[in-house]
């Protein structure tokens, strides 16, 4: 028996995920430790998407026929499911292509309200998706980009003097996709609000793995992707407080987001419709709603506890291997299930290649967080991420695989 507590019936969960039953290279069973990049999908999500196309396929929000009405119901029903999952109002949920587009939406639409002398505050641990859009906003507007740095253990250095009356937006991750660090978002949001600045949290690695209540977090915007939380690719979410969303001009323009169109000019819908031009991705929304129902039935508290148990196991197992350095905190306190590491003498790409031969899927490189890697003094790393379907045996297989890679390259 494992020394680590069990919170979920993982065997039953795994039976719901068709991809987990396949074999990969060398006829090895798949050990999928890359959910931080994209998660696998349970049958109920695949069924929901297929069911939409099979029976209900009509363009939501247009057409006077039954299929269109059903499409609208399914799409708007999914919005309500997302809202309930976050403790938000459906009118505060904007569907986007992914978390990246959600962040870009805010960064672009703030352009006209920011200028020279203003400051945009981010952190050094951001994924490029929550970094480059703000650099670009600064370049467009003449505003100054500032950032919280990271400490040697990967945690945020909370230099609160960075938050001033010049700060016009604070954007930070809810959980680092490299170190798993969960910065004190609620505390930073409180100080930002005192200074009059709205806060955007990148929830791509947070929302899939922890219970999230936007009222308790008190962020103004929260961006995340459906495909990292058992849902389909191609659908993300921007949560925004109603008044904050209403203050933003349109981002992408087209059909469905307008109120009145004349050749001389147009007026626009209230959010969320203002930000959703074009025929809505109702099938993907049906899939995301099914994913959220699935996660809710498991219970997000249990999901988080399961991942914490796997993370504790992984930290213990990797610590025991000579020549392995874990990036980020070595405890699970305020730390989620992303475990990045370097192996002395073996490049991450080579570690990943050896693990792949053993059927173990991990991420290698800088994981779209190049400045964070630079700050931690590494060029690249190997990363394992965990989700509801991962087992303690898989964590042991990872540790064995790393040892095998060390032997293969003569670095053990």
């Amino acid at each position, binding site marked *: 028996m494992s020394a680590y507590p069990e919170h979920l019936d993982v065997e039953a969960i795994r039976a719901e995920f068709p991809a987990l039953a396949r074999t990969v290279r*060398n006829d090895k069973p798949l050990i999928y430790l890359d959910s931080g990049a994209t998660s696998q999908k349970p049958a109920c999500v695949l069924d929901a998407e297929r069911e939409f196309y099979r029976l209900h396929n009509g363009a939501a929000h247009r057409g006077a026929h039954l299929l269109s009405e059903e499409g609208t119901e399914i799409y708007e029903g999914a919005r309500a499911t997302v809202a309930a999952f976050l403790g938000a109002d459906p009118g505060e949920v904007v569907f986007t292509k992914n978390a990246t587009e959600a962040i870009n939406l805010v960064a672009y639409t703030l352009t006209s309200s920011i200028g020279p002398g203003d400051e945009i505050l981010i952190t050094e641990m951001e994924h490029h998706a929550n970094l480059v859009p703000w650099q670009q906003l600064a370049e467009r507007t003449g505003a100054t980009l500032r950032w919280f740095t990271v400490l040697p253990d990967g945690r945020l250095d909370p230099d609160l003097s960075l938050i001033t009356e010049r700060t016009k937006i604070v954007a930070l991750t809810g959980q680092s996709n490299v170190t798993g660090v969960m910065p004190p978002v609620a505390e930073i949001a409180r100080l930002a609000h005192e200074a009059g600045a709205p806060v955007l949290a990148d929830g791509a690695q947070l929302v899939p793995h922890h219970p999230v209540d936007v009222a308790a977090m008190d962020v103004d915007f929260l961006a995340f992707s459906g495909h990292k939380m058992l849902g389909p690719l191609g659908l993300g979410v921007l949560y925004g407080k109603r008044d904050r969303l209403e203050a933003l001009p349109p981002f992408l323009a087209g059909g469905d987001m307008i109120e009145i169109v004349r050749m001389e000019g147009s007026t626009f819908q209230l959010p969320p419709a203002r930000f959703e031009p074009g025929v809505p991705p109702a099938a993907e929304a049906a899939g995301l709603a099914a994913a959220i129902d699935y996660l809710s039935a498991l219970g997000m508290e249990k999901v988080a506890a399961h991942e914490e148990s796997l993370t504790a196991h992984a930290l213990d197992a990797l610590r025991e291997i000579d020549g392995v350095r874990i990036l980020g905190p070595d405890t699970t306190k305020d730390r989620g299930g992303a475990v990045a590491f370097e192996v002395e003498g073996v*490049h*991450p*790409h*080579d570690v990943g*290649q050896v693990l792949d031969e053993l059927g173990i899927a991990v991420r290698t*490189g800088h994981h779209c967080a190049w400045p964070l890697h630079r700050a931690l003094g590494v060029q690249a790393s190997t990363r394992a991420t965990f989700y509801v379907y991962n087992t303690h045996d898989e964590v042991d297989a990872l540790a064995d695989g790393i040892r095998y890679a060390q032997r293969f*390259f003569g670095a053990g």
Partner: protein
Amino acid sequence: MQLESMYQDIILDHYRNPHHKGLRDPFDAEVHHVNPVCGDEVTLRVSLKDAGGEPVVEDVSYDSLGCSISQASASVMSDLVIGRPVAQAMTISAAFLELMQSKGAGKPDEDVLEDAVAFAGVSKYPARIKCALLGWMAWKDATAQAMEAAK
């Protein structure tokens, strides 16, 4: 296991003891190339000389950070092009590119590619092809710049 088909001894030898590594003077062009997926990088210098009206690769020197495949490939590349007329080295480069794009089905000509035939197995792994090409692409770029500057 197919690991050995990718990590041939020739590759591991070049990785552990890379040839011609380190930046040297003089040089005619210097480039810095990165693989944006993994952050691997190479700074590479080319020095050309004129041999009876034909440009010849006098020296290739480089400083690089990266995986075994990218490091070994740069080492093998330097062996293959140094001392060769540019036109001939470009032909070898084209043969290597063709091998990398062969999806494991390439039949490399050892007379042309020498140690670089060891990379045939890499072409089966799409994610690693860029690693193998990093040094070659940097050399091609630097050589083109050096030729342009000489005009």
